[in-house]
């Protein structure tokens, strides 16, 4: 029997999925900002993160890794849509930082552990 080590899901090329479709113990969501861009609704993502958090705690050895681009440090955009995307992304990252056991800030491949 082959066991998949992890599932990698990129927001730039794929759609996000729920724990019911998890096929491995480690799930990686990359480009979190891209998932949010398509649906910039805070409440939706809050419950999405919550559902994964519960899945992770549901069994030993489960891990969810969230990878996002920090898009929150530029000039405030003129367009309402862009502002909305940025705001929701900022809130989402706060929630993820709160619920995750480990938080790293990556610069040029160097990780700085923040939590």
């Amino acid at each position: 029997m082959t066991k998949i080590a992890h599932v990698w899901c990129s927001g730039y090329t794929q759609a996000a999925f729920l724990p019911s479709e998890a096929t491995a113990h480690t799930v990686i969501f990359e480009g979190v900002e891209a998932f949010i861009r398509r649906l910039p609704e805070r409440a939706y993502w809050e419950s999405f993160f919550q559902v994964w958090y519960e899945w992770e705690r549901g069994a030993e050895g489960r891990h969810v890794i969230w990878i996002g681009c920090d898009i929150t440090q530029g000039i405030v955009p003129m367009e309402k849509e862009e502002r909305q995307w940025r705001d929701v992304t900022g809130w989402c990252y706060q929630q993820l930082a709160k619920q995750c056991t480990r938080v790293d800030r990556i610069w040029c491949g160097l990780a700085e552990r923040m939590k």
Partner: protein
Amino acid sequence: MIFISGGVRSGKSGVAEHIVRSIASQHSTIHYIATATVTDEEMRERVIRHQQARRLQPVEWVTWEQPRHVHELIGAFRAEDVILLDCLTNWLANELFHEPGWENESYCRQKAEHILATVKKLSIVSKAVVIVSNELFSGGVLQDTGTYHFMKMLGWLHQQVVRAASSAIVVQHGIPIVKKGEGFMW
């Protein structure tokens, strides 16, 4: 190899020049590779300001204006020379966008790999190469293909250069923050 990055007007050129001078010996020639193309008055003023700052210094600088094909210069450097490359951002943009092809990610990847190979060669033929680049990843991910590929390739190059570099520094408000390797005397 030393990597220096920073935002606009962060003082990174000043920090890079300081480091170059501290590495250079009395036998070194300091080479300045400028990759920016002067396309408007604002850019011209910026170039002149940087040139004047260098002219005030005791060591001699040799300036090469090379927006693309930096590898053509490799024969011009000696083992005791120090090279300041300013900057990676412009160089990549010039290589990617001077002709069609940037719509294709593998074309962009090839260009970036060629740049990385050139940077590594520069560090082999000289005493040290100091590479200046820009922090431009925090303003959001832009959706047009050109900018997206440009940012993706620049991010990849930054990672590779930092991996190969003995020191990596981010400059913020004129203050150098050492991310990797030893600090320099400021």
